[in-house]
């Protein structure tokens, strides 16, 4: 019997947030001028955003759009860092740039704490999670991750062409986070749907978007109730029992954090693994060097994270402000592009090149400031193990068909179709 009142009813029944907030017109279609009309969900951006970012950095450097109800895109490292550090003027109340702005009252907690939280609440919500994600804690997942990577390669059999995105990269973070949250491993395919709905569905009609998000929270509530009946040593039971300010977490805090760990833990790492393999498939000299010089892999991994940083965040402007030469309005979006920051020549030598033995690499792939990715140690472990196993088992591989490679749209960018020829 479930005796925890927090989850006895559907916690969304007494949550009015759904009905408030601001919606605006959905604008899609080709971009005329990236400086005045940018959109990170258009095909041209997802296929290759770097020339666009480089051009904007030269001539703009803070682009604007009227889409999504209005927003700004800084492209210099200095500007991206300044906004990441400035929680006084920029809120994390929503970190996915879409056509919906949640109500102001949702701050400082937000829908998925702590990524959606502002100070001072942010610090306390984050502190709860940190011990589970230290380098030492995630090292305990490494043997199982390695064995799982081997089993994925085993499953390729004798085939000469495999899809490294859908048959390899994708499955690794799904399995790892399912284990950590204590979700059934066979539910993996549903997680992919949840991820796509959350991050790639930003231009869907509102009703459809809400319906799809409901499916995610239905699933999480199902898992929470199962953990109440059958407590175990995993992150779900931990969150259900965790306390803040002397009392257990609110139901929507528990579910929101679980949603965050599930969504943010999957397609980010999937993208980083896929982009690294894509690079190595296209650059035989780098691939051969890493196969021969395995100790270089950690350095190379950091360079892949810099050059192909998968994650772009968003912020909302708190109040009208003149900022670095542009007039930002309250509730304008900021598309906080760590990928653009990571390719700023003012910050990095040979910024546009992938230099796999780059020794000094102060990149911002995991963000900067108080919202540094809480899963960064887990992501680095998964990425390193995924590449080690792949290079050990499949030292020779090339792109089967460059035109067939498909990249995800939206704030998380990585290959979703990546046919590679083995040998």
């Amino acid at each position, binding site marked *: 019997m479930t005796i925890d009142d927090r989850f006895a009813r559907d916690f969304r029944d007494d949550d009015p947030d759904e009905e408030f907030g601001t919606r605006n017109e959905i604008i899609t279609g080709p971009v005329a001028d990236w400086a005045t009309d940018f959109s990170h969900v258009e095909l041209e951006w997802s296929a290759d955003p770097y020339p666009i970012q480089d051009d904007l950095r030269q001539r703009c450097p803070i682009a604007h759009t009227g889409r999504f109800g209005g927003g700004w895109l800084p492209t210099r490292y200095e500007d991206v860092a300044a906004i990441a550090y400035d929680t006084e003027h920029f809120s994390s109340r929503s970190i996915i740039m879409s056509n919906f702005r949640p109500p102001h009252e949702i701050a400082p907690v937000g829908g998925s704490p702590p990524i959606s939280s502002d100070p001072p609440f942010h610090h306390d919500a984050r502190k709860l999670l940190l011990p589970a994600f*230290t380098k030492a804690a995630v090292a305990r997942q490494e043997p199982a991750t390695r064995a799982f990577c081997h089993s994925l390669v085993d499953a390729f059999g004798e085939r000469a062409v495999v899809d490294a995105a859908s048959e390899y990269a994708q499955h690794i973070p799904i399995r790892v986070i399912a284990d950590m949250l204590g979700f059934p491993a066979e539910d993996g395919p549903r997680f992919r749907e949840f991820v796509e709905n959350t991050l790639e569905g930003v231009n869907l009609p509102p009703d459809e978007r809400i319906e799809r998000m409901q499916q995610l929270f239905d699933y999480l509530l199902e898992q929470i109730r199962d953990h109440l009946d059958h407590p175990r040593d995993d992150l779900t039971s931990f969150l259900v029992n965790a306390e803040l300010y002397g009392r257990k977490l609110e139901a929507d805090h528990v579910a929101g954090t679980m949603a965050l760990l599930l969504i943010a833990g999957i397609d980010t790492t999937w993208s980083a693994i896929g982009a690294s393999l894509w690079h190595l498939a296209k650059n035989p000299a780098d691939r051969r060097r890493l196969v021969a010089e395995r100790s270089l892999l950690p350095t190379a991994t950091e360079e892949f994270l810099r050059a192909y940083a998968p994650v772009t965040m968003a912020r909302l402007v708190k109040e009208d402000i003149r900022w670095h030469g542009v007039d930002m309005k309250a509730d304008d979006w900021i598309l906080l592009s760590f990928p653009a920051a990571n390719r700023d020549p003012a910050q990095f030598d040979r910024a546009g090149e992938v230099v796999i033995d780059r020794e000094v690499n*102060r990149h911002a792939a995991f963000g900067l*400031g108080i919202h540094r990715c809480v899963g960064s140690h887990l992501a680095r472990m998964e990425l390193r193990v995924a590449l080690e196993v792949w290079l050990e088992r499949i030292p020779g591989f090339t792109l089967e068909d460059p035109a067939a490679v498909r990249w995800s749209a939206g704030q998380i960018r990585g290959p979703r179709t990546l046919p590679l020829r083995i040998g």
Partner: protein
Amino acid sequence: MKVQIDSERCQGHGRCYDLAPALFGEDDEGYGQVLGDGGVPPGEEHDARLAAANCPEHAITASEES
């Protein structure tokens, strides 16, 4: 040579204890910690400089002792 971490700036990226494990460790929440008194033993100077140069938050200094 001596290393220091500015704990106000450190956000727990962990580059220091990845790159210079003889000089830095992590605390229970993943924030970087200087091991011992921060003195850099002979042979560890390169790692000390590497850790300082790779900290995304500019939280680490590696300075010559006066």
